[in-house]
Each structure stands twice: as structure tokens, then as C-alpha cells.
């Protein structure tokens, strides 16, 4: 090192270099994710190409999944994925809403922390544990009491009866949806709780001051203030539900069939891949499984993109008001 003549100059230079390196690192991190994503997409397209080329559009519209005759269609797993996720969201979203309102509005302060931690602990349970719980604990209960009751009560009704027919196996689309609901609950709840907490206190107090009831405050002030956050939380949960593999594989019944009954066994995209990939022999078979992966990728991407658009619209409308 030579004698220091311009101390500030060299320090500035060093800082500028550090700044440059720092910026480079952040750009590289972001770029790495994009490259990985592109790599995954390319690998899925490449791997799934033989199946897509053979079956063309029929891959999406056919129910058949026959490794013996090498005929594959993705409709049954696609249907199962959507239905189980839908059941999970129908149960988890209202429940999460209730929990979040309770935790932010009505719960005594000393109880908030413990309840919130318990719900977040649910997110830390490995999915295989949920699967085993679903198979050994939930399924027998459903099979021996809940499902026979559902079949007896609703089975003969027109329209709605179609959802509750067939023998009570205990496992099937409904069981998978229930297990998924428990699994996505902590994600949706914690996001909802955060956005509810973010509602300005002054707004709520002003509403109470005008004589609003607790329900009116929650519905008109808190909820309308946190719509974007709620949708974000729902998407997080939905993303998890669509891709969940292990727990679903245990309880969905794994049948490549489409049935109107929620009690019937079905399959999902990730469950099919997990079940069959290890012992799949033959190009078309493995390729079809990879094409299923591509399909899930596209499905998740579409849903996230749709959610983004929805959020954008809400924000714009909010700005106008």
C-alpha cells in the first residue's frame, strides 16, 4: 500500500466497488431463479415431448391411463387435482377467516400468542404424517360413521345425491380434500391474520365510534381493507393444495377414473407421478408421467397469473375509490 494521499477518494472507490458487487449478487440471485425455472420448464417439455407428440391434444381430454396398451390421458388426474383442491379451499378458507377474525378481534390478548403458534405448528408437520393420520385415523372414522350417514341422507336426492353415492371406502376424493384442508389451513390463516392486523386502528375505531357492531367492522372495514392480502393467502394455500403429493397419495384412492361421487377413489397429478414413476418402464409411460408434471406446472402458473391479474384489478379499483 502506498502512502494515503486521498483518503476519501480511495474509500469512495472501495464503497463503489462494494456497491457494484452487491448489486451484481442480487441480480445474479434473481437471474438464477429465472434460469432454474426455465431449466425445469425445458426439462419437462423435453421429457414430456414423446407423450405429447403421440397423444396430441387427446392427452388432456382422455380418461384412459393404461400402461399395458401404452394409452395415456391426463383427464382423470387433472380432474382429481382440481376437485380435491376445491374441497380443501371450500373448507379451509371460511375456517381460516374465522380463526383470523377471532385472533385479531375477539380473542383475549393473552390467548392470541399460544393459539397463533399452535396453528403455525400445523405447517411444520411433515406431509407424510398427515398422510398416515388420514389413512389410519381419519379414513376409518369417515368409513364407519360419516360416509354411511352422507350416503343415507343425501344419496337419494336428485342432483346433489350424485356427489354421495357408492360404497363407503373411507378413502377417496373427499378424504383427500379434508386432509388437504387441514394442511393448507395454517398458511391461509397466518396470511389473513397478518393482513387483518395491518388494518389501520384509526379506521376501526372510527367505525366503532359511528356505532358499528363488531361484525360490521370486520365485514365492512377490515375485510374491504385487506382483500388483496386475503386473495394472496388463498393462492398460497391453493398452490400448496395443488402440488401436495405424499399425504394425498395415501388417502385419495389412486384410481385413474372420473366419478361424480366425492366418495369414489380418484387420483391427482402429483399422486400419479409419485405412485408410478419408480416402476414405470418404457419411453411413452415415463414420458406421459413427465407430461403430467408439465401440466401441473402450467396449471399452477395459470392460477398464480390469474391471481396476480385479480389483485391488480382490485388495486386499481381501490385507487379509483
Amino acid at each position, binding site marked *: 500500500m502506498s502512502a494515503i494521499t486521498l483518503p476519501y477518494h480511495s474509500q469512495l472507490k472501495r464503497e463503489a466497488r462494494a456497491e457494484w458487487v452487491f448489486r451484481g449478487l442480487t441480480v445474479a440471485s434473481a437471474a438464477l431463479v429465472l434460469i432454474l425455472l426455465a431449466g425445469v420448464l425445458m426439462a419437462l417439455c423435453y421429457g414430456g415431448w414423446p407423450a405429447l407428440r403421440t397423444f396430441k391434444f387427446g392427452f388432456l381430454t382422455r380418461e*384412459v*391411463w*393404461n*400402461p*399395458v*396398451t401404452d394409452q395415456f390421458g391426463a383427464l382423470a388426474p387433472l380432474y382429481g387435482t382440481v376437485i380435491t383442491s376445491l374441497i380443501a379451499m371450500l373448507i379451509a378458507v371460511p375456517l381460516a377467516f374465522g380463526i383470523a377474525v377471532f385472533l385479531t378481534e375477539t380473542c383475549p390478548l393473552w390467548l392470541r400468542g399460544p393459539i397463533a403458534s399452535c396453528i403455525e405448528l400445523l405447517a411444520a408437520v411433515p406431509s407424510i404424517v398427515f398422510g398416515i393420520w388420514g*389413512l*389410519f385415523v381419519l*379414513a*376409518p372414522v369417515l*368409513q364407519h360413521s360419516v360416509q354411511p350417514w352422507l350416503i343415507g341422507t343425501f344419496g337419494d336426492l336428485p342432483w346433489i345425491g350424485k356427489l354421495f353415492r357408492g*360404497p363407503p*371406502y*373411507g*378413502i*377417496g376424493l373427499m378424504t383427500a380434500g379434508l386432509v388437504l384442508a387441514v394442511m393448507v389451513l395454517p398458511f391461509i390463516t397466518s396470511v389473513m391474520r397478518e393482513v387483518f392486523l395491518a388494518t389501520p386502528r384509526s379506521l376501526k375505531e372510527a367505525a366503532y365510534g359511528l356505532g358499528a357492531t363488531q361484525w360490521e367492522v370486520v365485514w365492512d372495514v377490515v375485510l374491504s381493507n385487506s382483500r388483496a392480502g386475503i386473495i394472496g393467502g388463498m393462492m398460497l394455500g391453493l398452490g400448496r393444495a395443488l402440488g401436495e403429493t405424499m399425504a394425498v*397419495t*395415501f388417502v385419495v*384412492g*389412486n*384410481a*385413474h377414473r372420473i366419478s361424480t361421487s366425492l366418495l369414489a*377413489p380418484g*387420483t391427482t397429478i402429483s399422486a400419479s407421478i*409419485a*405412485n*408410478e*414413476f*419408480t*416402476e*414405470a*418402464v418404457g419411453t411413452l409411460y*415415463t414420458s406421459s408421467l413427465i407430461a403430467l408434471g408439465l401440466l401441473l406446472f402450467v396449471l399452477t402458473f395459470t392460477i398464480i397469473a390469474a391471481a396476480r391479474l385479480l389483485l391488480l384489478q382490485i388495486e386499481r379499483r381501490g385507487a379509483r375509490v
Partner: protein
Amino acid sequence: MSKFISKVTATLGAVALLGSAGSPTLAGDISGAGATFPYPIYAKWAETYKQQTGIGLNYQSIGSGGGIKQIEAGTVTFGASDKPLEVADLKQNGLLQWPMIIGGVVPVVNIPGIKPGDLILDGPTIAAIYMGDISRWNDAAIQKLNPKLTLPKLDIAPVYRSDGSGTNFLFTNYLAKVSPSFSQKIGANTSVQWPVGIGAKGNEGVANQTTQTSGAIGYVEYAYVKQTGMTYARLLNHDGKYVAPEAKAFQAAAASADWSKAEGYYLILTDQPGSESWPITGASFILMHADSKDASTVAALKFFDWAYRSGQKMAEDLDYVPLPDKVIKLVQKTWQDSLKVNGKPVWAAR
């Protein structure tokens, strides 16, 4: 800067030295990958072999499909598959295959009042159940096989293995052999498209679902039935005799099969002749390159030879069935005649 470079070269040199010092112990190790069904016994053999000889075996149970791909790519010394490769596939990839261990598949049922071994079934009846053609336990076809039993008017709930497996392959292969309509409509594979029933994951999933559902029928590996005491059914075999799932019944099926005429050991042991043969029996296979450059080839053969000779007791303890002696002799003849390293035969008769 130059100091830094010299430091780096020194470190690299040290790493290289360490690497070369470490490699001789690694070279002795044998690597294999494939089927999950024989994993427990291969792992047990490997552990004992390591204690006795110091040579390790690293077996990854990634599934038969993965095992076949890895041996074709040459990343492992041997592959393992529950479903034998066809002769054309073997020739195309320059592979040899031979049977290593025997297992069997056993139908299990859950019918109120029926104890293990009470119920008798035959192949065509099971096929009809799994195709949905027979849907009640008191169906005439089942009653005819069991004139002494009073069977309930209960719906049959067929349970199948949802994960691709050798168990599925043996079961469907047997049904396809004995029932032309099963062969035509469903066929045999590690996974098939079942028209009815519910899919459960793994032996434990099928066992659990069968135990929970009144009127269920499932199929699991023999070891699983023996260890859990599930209600198994007896089967009517190729010779028209009733057999119970026992080690000697599986061995009888393997012994009565004519391996010497099966090119590339492409032989599936289902529906074999012999009055004592269990009809849903199968072998798990080892795959190796017929002419390899892999230095571990001889070590692997020594291990298999040791397993054939000294590993039988261990196999029986884990409820696998060892190969009959005459089949082992045949396999070792194949090693002697057809297995080469760098173009030279490596196995001498003992």
C-alpha cells in the same frame, strides 16, 4: 497474488493426494440399484458380507424402472428388476439377467366369520372379481369353490396396489394367464388400469384398507401375510390342487419351472405345474452387462455366489424363498459361459 495461487495449487494437490489414497477402499465396493421388493434381503446380505469380507455393497432401491435405466447407462455394477427383461431387450443392451430370490403374492380377504385359509379361490374367479363381473361374496362361482362355507350376501370391495410394483406385475400376469378376458381387457404390467376397486399405496396400504373394509379382497407379498397373520385365501393351482401360501409352495413353483429352456431366464413363475406349486410366485432378477469394463464385476459375482450359498438362512428369516440348488447351478453356468470383463471370461466353475 502469486502467493494465493501457490496456496490454491498446494490445497488442490493435497485434495488429489487424499483422493488417490481414498480410492482403493472405494474400488472394492459394489454398486447396484433397482427393485424395492428384494431390498430388505439385499441390505441384510450386504451388511453381513461387509462384516465377513470388508467389501461393501451399496444397493439403492429406486424401483425396477430406475434400476434398468441405470444398468443400461452403466452407472452401476448391477441392476435389479422384479419384472424380467425380454430377450430382445437384453440383446439390444448387451445385458445378462438371472433370478436371485423368490417371492410370492397372496390374496387376502376380510369377510366376517372367515378365518385364514378357510376360503378357496381360483384364478378365473379372482380375475372376475377384479374386473367387476363378480360383485358379491355369495356369488355362485365362489360358492361352488367353497361348498362347506356359508358366504354372506356382502359386496366385494377389491383393493389393489396403486404404486407400480413387482407385486402388481406377478398378480396381473397370473390373472392374464388363467383368464383370457382379463388378458384382453386389462393385461399384465407393474401398473394396470383397474376398472373397479380402490388403490392403496404399498403392501401396508393394501393390508390396512383390506383390514378396515368389510368385504374387501386384496393381495400382498407373502412376507407381509406371514408377519401380520392376515386372512389369506388358499388357491387352486395349475394341477387342480388346493395350496396354502407357504415357503415350500413357492419353492415348488420355482423347482418345477423349466429354467434350462428359458432363454435369458425370461420366465415368470406364475401358474407353474406341480401339485404343490403356489400359482402366484415370481423371482426378482439381477441385470449385468455381458461384457463390461467395470472392475467391480468379479466382486459382484463373488457376492452373489456367497449369497446363494450362505445367505439362504437369512433369506428365510426375512420370509423370502431361496432359489432351488439346480437353478443356482444353471445361473453359475451362465456366468461361466457368457459373462466377460474386457472380453475375457471371469468366472470359473467350482
